[in-house]
């Protein structure tokens, strides 16, 4: 049978978020998709780990929001959400914390009553904090017995500097001295009206919106806007960490670049996709398909509020670690010396377009992309612009970028494994 012809989508239409401002100044972005009988409501606070005054307090605050409020105990909150089949997700990165609630449309009302308690009136009870700290401490020590965790933490240190808020990691024992007051203070300073954006999607009826507005308007204002001054980055290049008995080595390689708003971000995203951003990428072909060194290898551009970096990560058999490092360097070298063939570049562009379509399939995905755009200062027309920017990228441009940004002397390499 012969290959059927292809249609390549050259536009992605995504609805624009309607922006409303609550009476305390907090913006609310509305993506109404009434054909889905669900509601998702997300609060994003500028309260990531770089804003914390002591170790682990940012994540503890976010994770303990639902552990008790002035009206309800943690049990009651969990009970009520479960009873209506509603749930929430808490995510935190270096810059932001994201708290999202999902419910069936028909149960939004009783869910909103809990949302209000969780976002506006958390009490961070002492006994729940003790349980939380014991649990997290143990989880972290398990995580840190894995080579990939050790590599990830040390890569961040290497790229940003050991003391930099983007690079720092703390010993588990820091959980022992965390107090309720630390968390309450973090909440008071950072979970405020001027530190927040709200994004809602799904079946947003006028009644639902009124409720969302009223919850948002009750966020307290703090007069002290916290300005975070980031120190200079300090980079170290080659780090090897011995991990006895590891049958695989974890490799991370990359370099500091720039945030999403930089003019070269999108073409560098194309370049990192060519290198290791999809199943048939150059690194995957080399390390997995031709050599069988690994189960997988990936590279990507990673975006922070104040910067961004390119990184690749893989785990390879202990005995082939050195060979794998050589092959990785070779692939980066080829990007710096040879034009990417037309057909391969076309393929990568189509993959990136398809990926955007998949992320945007369904009301929750649209909300995620909208949030990311807003945090970078864009609106949703940015998606179409991105697609066009990807389409315009040429092999010549990518070669020039590789020569500029992928010099071996700028690369940071972290390897964790058993070298004995």
């Amino acid at each position, binding site marked *: *049978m012969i*290959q*059927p012809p*292809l*249609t*390549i*989508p050259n536009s992605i239409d995504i609805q624009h978020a309607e922006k409303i401002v609550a009476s305390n100044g907090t913006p609310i972005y509305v993506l109404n998709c009434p*054909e*889905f*009988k*669900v509601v998702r409501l997300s609060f994003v606070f500028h309260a990531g780990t770089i804003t914390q005054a002591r170790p682990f307090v940012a994540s503890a605050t976010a994770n303990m929001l*639902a552990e008790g409020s002035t009206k309800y105990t*943690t*049990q009651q909150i*969990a*009970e009520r*959400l*479960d*009873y*209506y*089949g*509603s749930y929430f997700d808490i995510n935190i990165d270096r810059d932001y914390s994201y708290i999202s609630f*999902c419910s*069936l449309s028909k149960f939004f009302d009783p869910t909103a009553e809990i949302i209000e308690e969780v976002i506006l009136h958390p009490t961070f009870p002492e006994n*729940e904090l003790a*349980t939380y700290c*014991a*649990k997290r401490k*143990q*989880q972290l*020590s*398990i995580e840190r*017995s*894995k080579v990939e965790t050790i590599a990830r933490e040390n890569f961040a240190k290497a790229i940003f500097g050991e003391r930099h808020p983007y690079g720092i990691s703390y010993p588990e024992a820091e959980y022992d001295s965390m107090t309720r007051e630390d968390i309450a203070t973090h909440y008071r300073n950072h979970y405020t009206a001027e530190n927040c954006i709200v994004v809602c999607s799904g079946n947003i009826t006028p009644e639902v919106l009124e409720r969302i507005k009223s919850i948002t308007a009750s966020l307290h204002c703090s007069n002290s806007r916290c300005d975070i001054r980031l120190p200079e980055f300090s980079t170290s290049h080659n780090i090897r960490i011995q991990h006895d*008995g590891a*049958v*695989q080595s974890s490799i991370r390689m990359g370099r500091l670049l720039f945030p999403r708003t930089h003019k070269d971000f999108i073409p560098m995203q194309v370049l990192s996709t060519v290198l290791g951003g999809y*199943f*048939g990428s150059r690194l995957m072909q080399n390390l997995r*398909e*031709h*050599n*069988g*060194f690994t*189960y997988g290898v990936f590279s990507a551009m990673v975006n922070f509020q104040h910067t961004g970096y390119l990184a690749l990560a893989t*785990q*390879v*058999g202990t005995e082939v670690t050195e060979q794998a490092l050589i092959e990785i360097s070779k692939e980066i070298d080829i990007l710096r010396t040879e034009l990417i063939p037309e057909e391969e570049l076309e*393929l990568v562009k*189509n*993959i990136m*377009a*398809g*990926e955007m*379509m*998949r992320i945007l*399939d*369904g*009301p*929750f995905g649209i909300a995620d992309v909208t949030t990311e755009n807003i945090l970078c200062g864009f609106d949703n027309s940015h998606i179409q612009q991105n697609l066009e920017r990807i389409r315009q990228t040429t092999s010549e441009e990518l070669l020039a970028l590789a020569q500029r940004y992928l010099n071996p002397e700028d690369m940071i390499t972290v390897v964790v494994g058993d070298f004995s």
Partner: protein
Amino acid sequence: MIRYQHTKLSNGLEVIANRDTTSRLVAVNILYKVGARNEDPDCTGLAHLFEHLMFRGTHNVPDFDTPIQMACGENNAFTNNDYTDFYITLPKDNIETALWLESDRMMGLNLSEHACEIEKRVVIEEFRQRYLNQPYGDLNMLLRKMVYTTHPYRWATIGMSPDHIANAPLETIHQFYNNFYHPSNAILSISGDIAAEQVFDLAEKWFGPIADSPFTAPQIPIEPQQTEARRLEVERNVPATTIVIAFHMGNRLSHDFFLGDLTSDLLAGGDSARLYEHLIKGKKLFASVNAYISGDVDAGMFVFTGQLLPTTSEQDAEAAFWQEMELLAEGKISDYELEKVKNKFEANTLFGELNVMNKAMNMGYYSMIGDLPLINREVDIYRSITKQEVADFAIHTFKKENSSTLIYRAKQ
């Protein structure tokens, strides 16, 4: 509620179509009714290795991934003990690219010695990454070996050992393809903004010409009834001791399955569930705790698992699990609690129907277990379950002589 239409081609391929007018994507799922339970005990891991080999190209299309990616599509696959599933999502106008590739690799593979060797190495690295180089990586393997003495569920999908994969002869691999990869052993399910008649026409166009080669798979041995409590204690270099207690329960189509599933939700479905409330928050015995069913097609497992806090003794932890089972057996369940897990099941069913890929995958799955309409009946089944039924389930399942206990002890 997933609306679907169903047909069967003359070569035995089942085709199921769901129309979703909200999506610009189409999901094409193809499920082969073969998993690790169909393997020979001396050559395990083959079903999963085969899933990998299905991406190694054919005489006609040497590279499977590139045409999918060129069509803005994404594809992947997974294998478990019961079946192997391949799925593709792509813009709906490109649906024929997916059908072309799937029909092509159902017709024949190009399995060279070299391709097999490389893929074996990749799978062995997967074995290392996921099972050998991870804390607790071998826990499930130890558990299976204890719970099952006879049924092939006694090994994990990845296989019993990397040696089985390394030593699998090319001849055996070819035979495996001939036995299991043909139209009457497969289910094609599609969700997207395409009318069912058109889906059926396209299925006929691409898959109709493939000749079937029926094969009668050997009977899978039945696990004999367990009559004595089993116990295994191991010591590993991990930060915290984990305790697992597993019980045999009914197969996927028995009423026992729904009772087991609902019971596991009572115990561990969400933060307000019993185990979390009683054992983490209340007695503060565990750092994490769970109860789940293995969800297999043949008679499967009901599993309790908990990771101990450093201050907790193994005896207390084990006793706490048995007390929870006792509470259920005594019927100490409130109407409110039962209603809660039923509501939650209904909501999760709806959240799971928001995108085309989940729907296509689910249709294939329910057809594979032999009861496609069950896909829309399960919420009602859960709604009808009574307290007494849960208590009865606990009484006949959570018995010492039906238990296997694994103490996975942290080295001091």
